[in-house]
């Protein structure tokens, strides 16, 4: 069970209060009705699934109920940062390794 820092509750809480919500920073296209099949596939299906630092969404569903973003190393499961929805990706040390 992970321990996750909720950027809204401003403290670490047990994973049981959270729900993972997939890859982060995939914005729904503005003109979604007009995009190509390929663009829709990229938006809805293709995932980077990195072995290393993943940017992902969580929801503190049994806490403050907010969605937020996290950067986590998928090899160690260590969180490098969590930040509020709408904020840009944080600059992380060691990224790209």
């Amino acid at each position, binding site marked *: 069970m992970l321990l996750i820092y909720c950027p809204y509750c401003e403290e670490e809480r047990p994973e049981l209060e959270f729900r993972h919500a997939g890859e982060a920073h995939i914005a729904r296209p503005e003109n979604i009705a007009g995009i190509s099949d390929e663009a829709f596939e990229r938006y809805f299906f293709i995932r980077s699934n990195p072995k290393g630092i993943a940017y992902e969404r969580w929801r503190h569903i*049994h*806490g403050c109920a*907010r969605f937020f973003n996290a950067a986590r190393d998928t090899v160690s499961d260590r969180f490098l940062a969590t930040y509020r929805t709408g904020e840009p990706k944080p600059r992380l040390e060691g990224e790209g390794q």
Partner: protein
Amino acid sequence: MVEAARRTSPLEGRAFRGHGIVLAPAAPASRLSLRAAEEALPALSKALGLSLPRRPKTSAAEGGRAALWLGPDEWLVIDEQGADLPALAAGVSALHSAVDISHRNTAILVSGKRAEEVLAAGCPQDLCEARFPVGAASRTVFGKAEIVLWRTGKTVFRVECWRSFSDYVFSLLEKAARETM
């Protein structure tokens, strides 16, 4: 004209008293799910007669009324006297959402020197006084149910949950309470 329908609480008749622990259903109360942005807080605080808390995991209480911070734009307002909370909020023109949830939730009072330990049977948060002091309030989980936990005294907690989960929550509390540590 018919007579007003009677109330039946989901935990009617349930109670447990054990070594260092008492479990009891709380009396019916009125409750509001209040959602609002920062700008509306002064007006809403005024209307409700208490200062809506802005810090995570805190609450504000005034008389028999309390507001529990649940999220950055969400409060659970509880009035033990059964005041018409939606009516109070309706007078506020600042942008907000007030939804009556008096009957959605029910509450269990967990008290006694073992309260913290009994709650730890299902709640994964750190409930020691340093981390969860008197007045602290948080939505969290208890076993396989969601609850709102509010510490109203050194050894007193109020557990709010949706009514259909109350049987489970009470039963799990009772199971834990029956164990001597």
